[in-house]
């Protein structure tokens, strides 16, 4: 027991309200945890394996870039890249789930047709097309990944925090407060019995005194 409160009725009432509050908080936090876990599972399905997929895709993209570099000079590739236009824009919205901000993303396919890319297909070789292709793939994956991975990480951290709070309330705070309330009520009962016995004793003594007086009279 952390602290022994004064055994008064006031303290008892206080302790009881605290227990009630803790119970309410516990219930709310439990609901929050469940909601978070639900959301988590929703995202998890989408997030699976995206990261390893991205890593593999990045590797092939860098490979394609290296090959292109050996065919052309870096300057040539850069020149071609300068000509590429129409960046795929995205739309990010932030959803708030139980205080956790989760981004959702709307994006159009970054894939482009060969001719729509913007650089001259006469002056460049297929190697550069390959690089563009793989990087478009990567970009597409990044779109998918950004939505899920970020949110999932944040969700998990929040779930952990909430879980810890729920458990600490359930196993530490509530039993402790209940113990306090119990202790106070025991002490109060004990005091009541005490005073009852005392009153009885006084009454007996008074009666005895009165009888003795009567006898003397």
């Amino acid at each position, binding site marked *: 027991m952390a602290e022994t409160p004064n055994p008064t009725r006031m303290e008892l009432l206080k302790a009881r309200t605290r227990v009630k509050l803790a119970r309410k908080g516990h219930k709310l936090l439990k609901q929050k945890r469940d909601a978070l876990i639900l959301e988590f599972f929703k995202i998890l399905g989408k997030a699976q394996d995206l*990261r390893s997929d991205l890593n593999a895709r990045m590797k092939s993209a860098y490979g394609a870039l290296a090959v292109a570099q050996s065919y052309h000079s870096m300057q040539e590739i850069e020149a071609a890249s300068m000509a590429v236009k129409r960046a795929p824009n995205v739309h990010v919205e932030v959803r708030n789930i139980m205080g956790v901000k989760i981004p959702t993303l709307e994006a159009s396919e970054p894939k482009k047709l060969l001719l729509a890319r913007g650089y001259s297909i006469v002056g460049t070789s297929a190697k550069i097309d390959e690089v563009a292709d793989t990087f478009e793939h*990567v970009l597409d994956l990044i779109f998918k990944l950004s939505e899920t991975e970020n949110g999932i990480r944040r969700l998990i951290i929040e779930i952990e925090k909430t879980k810890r709070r729920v458990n600490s309330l359930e196993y530490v705070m509530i039993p402790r407060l209940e113990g306090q309330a119990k202790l106070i009520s025991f002490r109060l009962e004990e005091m009541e019995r005490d005073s009852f016995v005392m009153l009885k004793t006084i009454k007996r003594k008074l009666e005895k005194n009165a009888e003795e007086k009567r006898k003397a009279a």
Partner: protein
Amino acid sequence: MATDNKEKIAVIADSPTCTGFRLAGVDHTYPLSGSEAEGRLSELLSDEGFGIIIVTERMLEGCDWRLKKKVEQTAKPIVVAIPDMGGPIEQEESLAKLIKRALGVDLTKKK
């Protein structure tokens, strides 16, 4: 292409990576490194016009811890770390580990 998609994409990485993303059509590429990249990243983080910021893992790793924390806390723009030319680096706390710690079950293994 939809016109209502308004947020831009930015790439802060080494120059070959930037070139690659340029080929994919990303307009805002910043081939920077070190403190310059950090400055740019924090600048972009507070810019409403950007939806996604792509950075290399190695760059993010070398960042100031305050900036990293900021990156973790902002929901928009989304910061995505990608492996650079040297390949992916081991993250100290992988997603699978986090899931296992939070839920007690490793969900990523079974599927």
